[in-house]
């Protein structure tokens, strides 16, 4: 990036302009959420809306936090999201490997059926699944919140796409070395695709973290409820306390951002490798 042609400099400027404009645009709702969480109850309903709060109401956070047993919800959410994520990673990695690398009778049909299940809206499956969970006597247990989500076609398919980009030669070489499939998968395939697996982990964790309707359906006691249920506390049939909903939403997001920042290092490792040369 030293002495460059003018066109290169312009290209560089354009690049940053696009990135900054895009970032501002995509970030707008996030900023809005944070600013709204600091508005007063009257300011938040003003039309047209103000952008910067006239008085910063940090007390909204304390009020939101005190309104529901958030510590318990927090523990439940962390537990459910963690177990679900670890479990779904495991099952998805195994299945993705089968689809990407193994040949078995009926593979095409199984794969087609597998993909076909994605094509029916989840809303149609909800009531039947609730009846199933009831018959299994899983209502009000962690099992009910976790087990149905331990298989995920999206993640399996995504990982199998990544696995299939790994050169076939590596697999054959491993075969020659008498490396078992399972060993190959976890010693070579998984480390090679850790960017993708980390991404799936984040997606799964966020999905589980934000889920609302299913956990509400399968639980009854407050002890089993999760963070997203805390948000409902601030609304009623006639209206809602939006500044508190926003404050609680901000509280909800913090752990995910921390996890992301922590995991980002792993996603970025590959980059550091190429990055130093520039």
């Amino acid at each position, binding site marked *: 990036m030293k002495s460059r042609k003018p066109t290169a400099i312009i290209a560089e400027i354009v690049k940053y302009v696009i990135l900054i404009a895009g970032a501002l645009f995509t970030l707008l*709702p996030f900023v809005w959420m944070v600013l709204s969480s600091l508005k007063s109850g009257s300011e938040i309903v003003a039309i047209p809306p103000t952008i910067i709060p006239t008085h910063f109401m940090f007390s909204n956070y304390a009020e939101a936090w005190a309104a529901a047993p958030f510590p318990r919800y927090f523990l439940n959410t962390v537990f459910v999201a963690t177990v679900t994520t670890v479990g779904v990673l495991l099952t998805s990695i195994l299945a993705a490997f089968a689809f990407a690398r193994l040949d078995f009778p009926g593979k095409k049909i199984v794969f087609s059926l597998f993909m076909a299940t994605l094509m029916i809206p989840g809303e149609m499956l909800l009531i039947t699944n609730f009846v199933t969970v009831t018959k299994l006597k899983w209502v009000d247990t962690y099992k009910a919140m976790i087990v149905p989500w331990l298989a995920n076609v999206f993640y399996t398919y995504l990982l199998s796409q990544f696995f299939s980009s790994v050169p076939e030669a590596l697999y054959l070489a491993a075969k020659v070395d008498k490396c078992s499939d399972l060993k190959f998968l976890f010693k070579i395939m998984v480390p090679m695709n850790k960017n993708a697996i980390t991404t799936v982990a984040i997606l799964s964790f966020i999905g589980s973290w934000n889920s609302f309707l299913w956990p509400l359906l399968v639980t009854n006691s407050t002890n089993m409820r999760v963070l997203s249920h805390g948000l409902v506390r601030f609304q009623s049939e006639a209206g809602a306390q939006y500044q508190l909903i926003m404050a609680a939403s901000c509280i909800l997001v913090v752990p995910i951002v921390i996890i992301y920042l922590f995991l980002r290092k792993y996603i970025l490792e590959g980059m550091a490798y*190429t990055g130093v040369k520039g």
Partner: protein
Amino acid sequence: MNRKSYKGYVYLAPVLAIMLVFTAYPLVRAIFMSFCEDYSIINGSYKGINLENYADLFKDKDFRKAITNTITYVIFVVPLSVVISLLIANLLNSHIRFQGLFQTLYFLPYVTSVIAIGVVWRWILHSQYGLLNSILNFFGFESIGWLTDRNYSMASLIIFAVWKSLAFDIMIFLAALQGISPDLYSAARVDATPRWRVFFRITVPAMRPIIAYAFVMGIINSFKVYNEVFSLFNGSAGPSGYNSAITIVFYIYDKFYNNYKYGIAAAGSVVLFLLIMFFTAIQRLPGRIRARKEAAQK
């Protein structure tokens, strides 16, 4: 390739077992429901097995509108989202300052509360105080009733949806870009190949499986669009009174949970199912043809 063996099923077993119970079974039940006249979800009773639900469905002008709207939505949202995300992911992956910061900024929308997202977009698109109209006015254009004029409902929905799917696509594309072996690029660097050509000759082919994934998933998810409509139009399917932005899943949801017409909702799901099958098959055609050509050349 190793010989065919049933070992693959051992690896698939956990996923298949769970899906059998929690996906396949309810799915089969939904298909069955779609053929039952006046099906009751409460006790499983029905008047008879026939195509009554399908007949009702196609007589309903809202459903026909839902189909055309959904197809329009898919045709616009999926390609736009993939192309823009690819561009941004590529920029994010190039040598830029504050790379980590930028990546985090582009990730944040993904964790933003849906309430905030709905609220802020309704403000952006508001006919009188909206940000978008202010920008249009600044450049001398007239204000548009994005959320009030039913002719613009789909346009508003598409803008919103493209924005909403960016974060996800950028994330998986970034993961894929990180996985491309740097050796692939070294040759290009020596040749001083122009950057755009590197992008199309090296980056895109290396990412082909992930781009295909983004397309297939984009199509499937876009066909199932519901939340975007709900949050943009404040619970209805377009400006109040008009169903100008109704989508298939919105229709299904309304029939099932508000009107208790379970059979019709199930029939709608089956139609949706067939539509998605059809579109994903079309989408794969170019790949198949290419594969066949390549095979022929060899």
